[in-house]
């Protein structure tokens, strides 16, 4: 298997693959991977699997089948019987994998890591209010408001996130809701067209080329029926179906057609033996639900962040609780302090900012054809370290295309780009004229009618992939193939079959003076060559001698070695005297010569790589992402494509190649020296987990060929064992376990089957590998920017917390109130923190390694320390300066404020003396306190502007990054100032908000500190750039 042809890989037109199916002989093996994994999951899945393999309908003959399903092969089921079975079995459709109900989805949005923190904060607030209320029922409602606001933040953010996800889910859903499929069924002795969903077991259906098989069917009759089983087994070659029982294994036998596979050509009649979820594919799809879902990396990061915040909050809370108690505060009041401190640490605005940032990125990605199902997954692609990519459709254009031609002893290259505008090879040779004629005539593929205005490359063709390629190729070069075929009427034809391995047709010629018939033939090159005695060189027939045969062999080997499917073409003008006009050509008896033909040339076909892919792969490589190709195709093709797109780079070798070059046995090669590895499914099957791990570790460029899609799951798990974040592309239902297991499942939008799309986190609408790279880039950017957002938001937490701590310890009038804090967190800071999501990358983010899942955290120690203990403290000082300025200028000098609290807050003292001998009523003091709040608030706002500007970059100077490149930042800054102005001057008279109209000069008190913050951070960045790897770099770079 597979070894039969080691050097040259060719597949004949229409051919049954000369390479047998991957796992011939033991279909069970295909499920080995799955079984291993489902084994310790749910027993009933094992049962399901067994049942599937117990399928024995393929062994039964028609009468037994009729008995079994109570049907009649000629007349079909009766409508009434069909209705009964339908009622009993349900519709013939895959039930989507347990759709979580909308309510659950909605609620899930509100209990994520972040939300929990806010909920906890809200509950603590209410508890604190309860305690306070029990003591004194005239206590301020601040804690209740705070709790309500926290709850509202969670709820609104939840609604927003839910809405965002519902939107992208809808877009994805719109793809799966394609035209309802129809099935041609025989019921009550009549042929009817019914929706495929209504098919029941026992129905007799007819299928023809182009149809999707509507259920698992046992083939009863077939005419040249070929199916594409790739979505089930990953084998891309068409497989013929007939009514013969050819294999014990239901997956291998030819007389079963599987649900969701496509009939490529021919017609067949079959009896439905399984519908809906009981079909083979339905069972595979249901297996996916048994595969554990991994948490998205960003979810893990946010959890980690919540741990940090909660840890800090609780530690500070407890420390100050102890301090408060030892300062003889009553215990209950100390508990209130404890709760207050914990709640003050909750970054209220961050949840909203993160959610909005993620959805902005999601939107940006959607524009570039990547759809994200779950907002959190936006970042995942950025942390991807391994991409397991499909070949067909993702790396390649998913259509056979003529890549090379060989005639006149010369290899010509054809244009394989997507639009194929310029075919630049030399077309002047007479040989080419003959070759083109054969290509045009010896071809059964046809354009579907009614596509006059469609570009050639996009026209829909009836016929198999190779013939389609040849048809389009000749249409592009010579124009109007159909017209030319009409002028050269076909008089006889032998379609391809596996014994002949050639296709032949006989035509009248369009030359009115030439009454000869033209016999044209194409097929496996060596077979064609056998039938030839001459060869055409420059339009002249020459005898086929040693040297020409050798030239042919070289060309054949060369093209085959490129992984291309090589076809040979030959022709013969039948002598007019032997074959007159009226000669009765008979394809059955072959009453015409099939040898001594004239060899004209070779064409080789390949599914060419998408033009954008090599670039994308290079980008991945420089971004430290390993691209692994996983394909059902033959190793040689796979390797050729891998080489042409750069998955295997030009100068790297496999172990085998090294052995070849060094002329030593494979065993003696140092495996570590070989960068590349091509592993076939066969080898993979025999490998132990350790061996697989070894391959994944030792080789940087890996191609898995001939793998069954189920082996994808094994590969994915292997990668995950290396702590890699694995992205997997897939489109078939059978891929869904691997897609689900992967850290990020990328469903290919256009070709992807519905069930696969249910499992994925991502959809690529254009099936293009390059789009993944875009996703990686955006994902990395958002990770960086979230860091900035979080750092920005955390900083002011300290400035909001310190006042409370000083208030407890030094007994000063409260510098900033709860409501005011909320206006910072949910007012002035919201737009700026979102604006950071628009920040451009500092350096080429595609030039660094993917982040390590466990080491490179979103919120690391450096970030927390720098935000809390550096900038946060600076901000607090600036804000306190503003606070003391206001109090001192209004009459209370700093020294007097210490331990003034109990008098200050005493409602019965209405003649409190200030530092100048003036006396204050309680309400006048309150007004001053609010002025203090407002000044503190404004000071934080002013310093947050500086904070916003320094957070634009983590390493580069602001001047390198450009102050004005991100316009949204300026919108953010403007919003900060405008909101503060409105609060102070607009709402200054509304008492519950506790803002006052602030004197103009108080707005500028903290400006020096804002400047210090900025200068300090510039120095930090300067030292980081100057001394990479130094103590400073290690401790100050977040």
């Amino acid at each position, binding site marked *: 298997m597979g070894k039969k042809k080691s050097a040259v890989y060719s597949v004949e037109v229409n051919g049954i693959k000369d390479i047998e199916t991957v796992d011939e002989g033991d279909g069970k093996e295909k499920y080995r991977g799955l079984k291993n*994994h489902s084994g310790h999951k749910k027993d009933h899945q094992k049962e399901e699997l067994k049942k599937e393999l117990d399928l024995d309908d393929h062994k039964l003959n028609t009468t037994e089948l009729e008995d079994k399903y109570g049907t009649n092969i000629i007349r079909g089921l009766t409508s009434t019987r069909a209705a009964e079975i339908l009622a009993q079995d349900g519709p013939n459709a895959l039930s989507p994998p347990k759709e979580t109900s909308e309510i659950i989805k909605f609620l899930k949005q509100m209990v994520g890591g972040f939300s929990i923190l806010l909920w906890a904060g809200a509950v603590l607030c209410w508890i604190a209010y309860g305690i306070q209320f029990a003591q004194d029922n005239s206590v301020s409602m601040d804690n209740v408001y705070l709790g309500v606001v926290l709850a509202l933040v969670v709820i609104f953010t939840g609604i927003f996130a839910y809405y965002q996800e519902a939107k992208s889910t809808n877009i994805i859903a719109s793809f799966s809701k394609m035209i309802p499929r129809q099935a041609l069924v025989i019921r009550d002795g009549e042929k009817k067209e019914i929706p495929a969903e209504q098919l029941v077991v026992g129905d007799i259906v007819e299928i023809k080329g182009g149809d999707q098989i509507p259920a698992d069917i046992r083939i009863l009759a077939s005419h040249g029926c070929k199916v594409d089983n790739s979505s089930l087994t990953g084998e891309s070659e068409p497989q013929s179906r007939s009514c013969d029982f050819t294999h014990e294994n239901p997956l291998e036998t030819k007389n079963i057609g599987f649900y969701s596979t496509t009939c490529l050509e021919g017609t067949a009649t079959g009896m439905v033996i399984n519908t809906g979820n009981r079909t083979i594919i339905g069972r595979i799809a249901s297996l996916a639900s048994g595969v*554990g879902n*991994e948490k998205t990396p960003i979810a893990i990061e946010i959890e980690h962040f919540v741990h940090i915040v909660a840890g800090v909050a609780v530690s500070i809370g407890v420390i100050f609780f102890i301090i408060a108690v030892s300062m003889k505060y009553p215990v209950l009041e100390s508990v209130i302090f404890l709760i207050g401190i914990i709640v003050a640490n909750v970054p209220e605005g961050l949840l909203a900012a993160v959610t909005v940032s993620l959805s902005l990125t999601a939107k940006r990605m959607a524009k570039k054809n990547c759809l994200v199902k779950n907002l959190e997954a936006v970042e995942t692609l950025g942390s991807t370290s391994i991409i397991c990519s499909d070949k067909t459709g993702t790396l390649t254009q998913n259509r056979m295309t003529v890549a090379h031609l060989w005639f006149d002893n010369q290899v010509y290259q054809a244009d394989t780009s997507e639009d194929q505008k310029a075919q630049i090879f030399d077309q002047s040779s007479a040989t080419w004229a003959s070759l083109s004629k054969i290509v045009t005539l010896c071809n059964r593929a046809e354009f579907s009618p009614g596509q006059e205005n469609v570009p050639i490359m996009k026209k829909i063709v009836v016929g198999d992939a190779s013939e389609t390629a040849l048809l389009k190729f000749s249409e592009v070069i010579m124009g109007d193939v159909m017209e030319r075929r009409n002028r050269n009427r076909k008089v006889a034809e032998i379609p391809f079959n596996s014994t002949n391995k050639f296709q032949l047709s006989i035509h009248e010629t369009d030359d009115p003076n030439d009454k000869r018939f033209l016999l044209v033939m194409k097929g496996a090159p060596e077979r064609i060559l056998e039938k030839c005695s001459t060869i055409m060189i420059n339009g002249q027939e020459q005898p086929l001698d040693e040297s020409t045969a050798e030239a042919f062999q070289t060309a054949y080997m060369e093209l085959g070695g490129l992984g291309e499917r090589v076809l040979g073409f030959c022709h013969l003008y039948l002598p007019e005297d032997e074959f007159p006009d009226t000669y009765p050509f008979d394809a059955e008896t072959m009453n015409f010569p099939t040898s001594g033909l004239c060899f004209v040339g070779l064409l080789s076909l390949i599914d060419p790589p998408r033009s954008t892919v090599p670039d994308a792969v290079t980008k991945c490589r420089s971004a430290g992402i390993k691209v692994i190709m996983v394909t059902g195709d033959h190793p040689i093709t796979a390797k050729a494509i891998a080489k042409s797109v750069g998955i295997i780079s030009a100068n790297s070798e496999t172990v085998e190649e090294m052995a070849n070059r060094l002329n030593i046995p494979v065993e003696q090669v140092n495996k570590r020296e070989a960068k590349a590895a091509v592993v076939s499914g066969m080898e993979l099957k025999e490998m132990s987990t350790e061996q697989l791990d070894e391959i994944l570790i030792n080789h940087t460029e890996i191609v898995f060929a001939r793998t069954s899609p189920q082996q994808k799951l094994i590969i994915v*798990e292997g990668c*995950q*064992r290396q702590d890699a974040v694995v992205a997997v592309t897939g489109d078939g239902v059978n891929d869904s376990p691997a897609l689900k297991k992967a850290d990020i499942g990328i469903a290919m939008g256009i070709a992807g089957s519905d069930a696969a799309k249910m499992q994925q986190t991502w959809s690529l609408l254009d099936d293009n590998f390059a789009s993944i790279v875009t996703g990686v880039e955006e994902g990395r950017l958002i990770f960086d920017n979230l860091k900035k957002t979080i750092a920005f938001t955390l900083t002011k937490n300290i400035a909001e917390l310190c006042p409370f701590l000083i208030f407890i310890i030094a007994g000063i009038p409260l510098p900033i109130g709860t409501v005011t804090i909320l206006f910072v967190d949910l007012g002035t800071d919201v737009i700026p923190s979102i604006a950071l999501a628009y920040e451009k990358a500092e350096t080429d983010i595609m030039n660094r390694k993917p982040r390590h899942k466990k080491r490179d955290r979103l919120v690391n120690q450096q970030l927390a320390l720098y935000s809390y*203990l*550096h900038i946060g*403290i*600076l901000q607090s*000082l600036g804000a*306190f*300066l503003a606070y*003391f*300025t206001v109090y*001192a*200028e*209004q*009459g209370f*000098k*700093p020294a007097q404020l210490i331990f003034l609290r109990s008098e200050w807050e005493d409602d*019965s003292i*209405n*003649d409190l*003396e*200030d*530092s*100048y*001998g*003036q*006396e*204050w*009523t*309680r*309400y*006048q*003091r309150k*007004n*001053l306190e609010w*002025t203090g709040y407002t000044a503190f608030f404004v000071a934080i706002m002013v310093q947050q502007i500086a904070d916003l500007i320094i957070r634009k970059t983590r390493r580069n100077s602001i001047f390198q990054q450009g102050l004005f490149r991100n316009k949204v930042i300026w919108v953010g800054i403007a919003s900060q100032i405008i909101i503060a102005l409105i609060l102070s001057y607009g709402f200054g008279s509304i*008492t519950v908000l506790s803002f006052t109209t602030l*004197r103009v000069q108080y707005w500028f*008190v903290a400006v*020096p*500190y804002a400047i*210090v913050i900025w200068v300090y951070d510039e120095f930090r960045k300067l030292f980081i750039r100057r001394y990479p790897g130094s*103590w400073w770099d290690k*401790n100050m770079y977040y």
Partner: protein
Amino acid sequence: MTKDEKKPFEQTLGEWKRFIYNPGNGQILGRTAESWGLILLFYLAFYGFLAALFTFTMWVMLQTLSDDIPKYRDQISSPGLTIVPKPHGALEFSINSSKTSTYENYVSAITNFLRAYERERQEFHTHCRNGTLFEQDDLSPKRACRFPLEMLETCSGLQDTSYGYPEGNPCIFVKMNRIIGLRPQGTPRIACAVKEGKEVPLAVFPQNGSIDLKYYPYYGKKLHVDYLQPLVALQVMLHAHNEEVLIECKIEGSPNLRNQDDRDKFLGRVAFKISMAH
């Protein structure tokens, strides 16, 4: 499979132990002693710098202040009224004229309060001209006007050192909060009335409850050292009643002294309750 399972307790404990002290690389709490030294040194320097910075900015700010008068009086444009004595908590006197303990605190509070107004202490104070503001912007030191206690008649404590409490006619003193530079306009006076309860007679001293303008303006604690706030005494004649009355006193007769603020119950007014038993 790759899901993190619960680690056994011993392992967690071991990890913590290793975190606290890792003998392998000599790390304590995740840092080596040297690294701890460096980081502490850094924070010492950094916070030293911050402390200096803060001190400096505070110093600069304080330099801009005058010792004599505050820069702004944004929140105190109009004075509040308060009473002496002041019951603990809410302004509710609960007096039993036959029980000394119910009022002795009040009496001593008044005595203390009036001590500043004793004749001997006012000896060097100025006799100011009645009815006009006593402007002395150019004077230094500022001089205080006399406030003869006699003006308070029966509440002056000169004849009755217990201010009418044992008789059931308690004296309560109303004063206006000091505000630097406040210049009342018109002829300010304290008007008191029973708001709730029986219309008991109220006696106000000095006559009419008037507050003479000569006590204004006030120049502040530092410049105006001996300043005496004008007082208005209110005697509530409850000797014949077992009553609870709510009395409100307001500043009247001065356009620039506000006495109606929805939020500030003490701005130019004060209300208190007296419940009297015998």
